[in-house]
């Protein structure tokens, strides 16, 4: 399987099913094995990527402005945003947990927004990064996106567990809903991306290089 130059399904006049990898002649509409719609390239892919991306971004803003947790103790009521809560943890001597929270709720979501935008732009114009690197970036984005839900689950566990009547109570704030929506929308954005588009630019470039000789 290696050593020989790669031929794409498009060049061979066939189309591969993305659900079950069965191969069909081009022009077949529906995969006869798994019933998925066959598309040589998903041309609406980028539109859907950007649509989900924008909605995700819109949800991410209130997710950071509103409080994520409302902590009520005997004397005080404290409302923490995502970043505020992490700083709080850091100063209270749990820098490791603070780092996990910051990483899962700030670094990963922001990194995802940038990465998806970069990938979507890079398939339309030339990019300095190699195809392998960009494909790796795509896989990382697809894999890591779900992990942003950690913060929501932490809030869920804390606010169900810490319900000690008058003593102390933790309740979820409105940011949790926006944050969860933001994670879901960015996951949908990443899923809408047709990764075959990354490699098409390579085939096109190689075609130009060949015709140039």
């Amino acid at each position, binding site marked *: *399987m290696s050593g020989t130059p*790669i*031929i*794409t*399904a*498009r*060049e*061979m006049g*066939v*189309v*591969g*099913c*993305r*659900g*079950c*990898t*069965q*191969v*069909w*002649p081009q*022009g077949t509409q529906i995969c*006869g*094995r*798994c*019933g*998925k719609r066959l598309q040589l390239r998903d041309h609406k892919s980028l539109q859907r990527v950007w649509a989900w991306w924008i909605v995700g971004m819109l949800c991410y803003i209130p997710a950071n402005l509103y409080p994520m947790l409302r902590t009520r103790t005997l004397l005080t009521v404290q409302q923490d945003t995502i970043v505020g809560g992490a700083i709080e943890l850091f100063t209270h001597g749990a820098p*490791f*947990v603070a780092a996990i*929270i910051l990483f899962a709720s700030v670094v990963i979501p922001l990194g995802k927004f940038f990465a998806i935008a970069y990938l979507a732009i890079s398939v339309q114009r030339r990019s300095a990064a190699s195809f*392998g690197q960009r*494909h790796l970036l795509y896989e990382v984005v*697809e894999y890591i996106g*779900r*992990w942003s*839900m*950690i913060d*929501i*689950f*932490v809030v*869920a*566990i*804390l*606010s*169900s*567990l*810490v*319900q*000690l*009547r008058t*003593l*102390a109570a933790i*309740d*979820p704030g409105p940011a*949790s*809903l926006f944050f*969860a929506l933001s994670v879901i929308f960015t996951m949908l954005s990443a899923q809408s991306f047709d*990764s*075959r588009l990354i*490699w*098409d630019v390579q085939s096109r470039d190689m075609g130009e290089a060949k015709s140039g000789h």
Partner: protein
Amino acid sequence: MQDRLPPQPVPDLIVCPQCDAAYKLARPASGERAVCARCHTALITPRSKAGLQIIAVSIAIVVLVIAATVFPFLTIKVAGTQNSVSILDAALAFSDGPLIALSLSTAALIIFIPLLRVLLALYVLIPVVLDRMPAKGSRQAFRMSEALRPWSMAEIFAIGCAVALVKITDLADVTFGPAFWMFAILVVLVVAQDNFMCRWTVWKSLDGLRKDGLRKDGLRKPERDT
């Protein structure tokens, strides 16, 4: 007049779903992996006895999910006051107003979608492993199970637990209920079940003996009526 023949699959090729590279189909031996040379996506990863192992693990998962959901999960104790919760309580923590939507989706992500995926896998795999005809709707079931894959988040909930515990251990005493340990095992099994499965092999086995007369090898049976 005969209808146009439905499109015939191209039998001896495999196309990488991620980068569209086409390869001549060569089945790797059990335990080996066929990987796309260009983008390194694993295409075929057969394992011997995988079917039986997956079924065994799946049944264990079903039992554990149900048990882990109803037994107490964590108990907190501060100055004589205590509160214990199950996983379902944790999922349903977002209960006021519009947050109820979040409750429902959390419950789905950590309990119902993992459970549904396992049940779908059992439905698809049991007839295949027993060498029977694939069950009715097997292909839709397997497609649905694959589509739900990114939305099954039990393992992420487990890490969330760890973070939450570190957050409150210096404020209160937390004790683990039986569901906590069940859930810990459950997460390992869910991940294992997912990694044992070779999607290509499952699809291939669902291919056999179909209603439209296509045989396993993709050849058309001779027409009886002329």
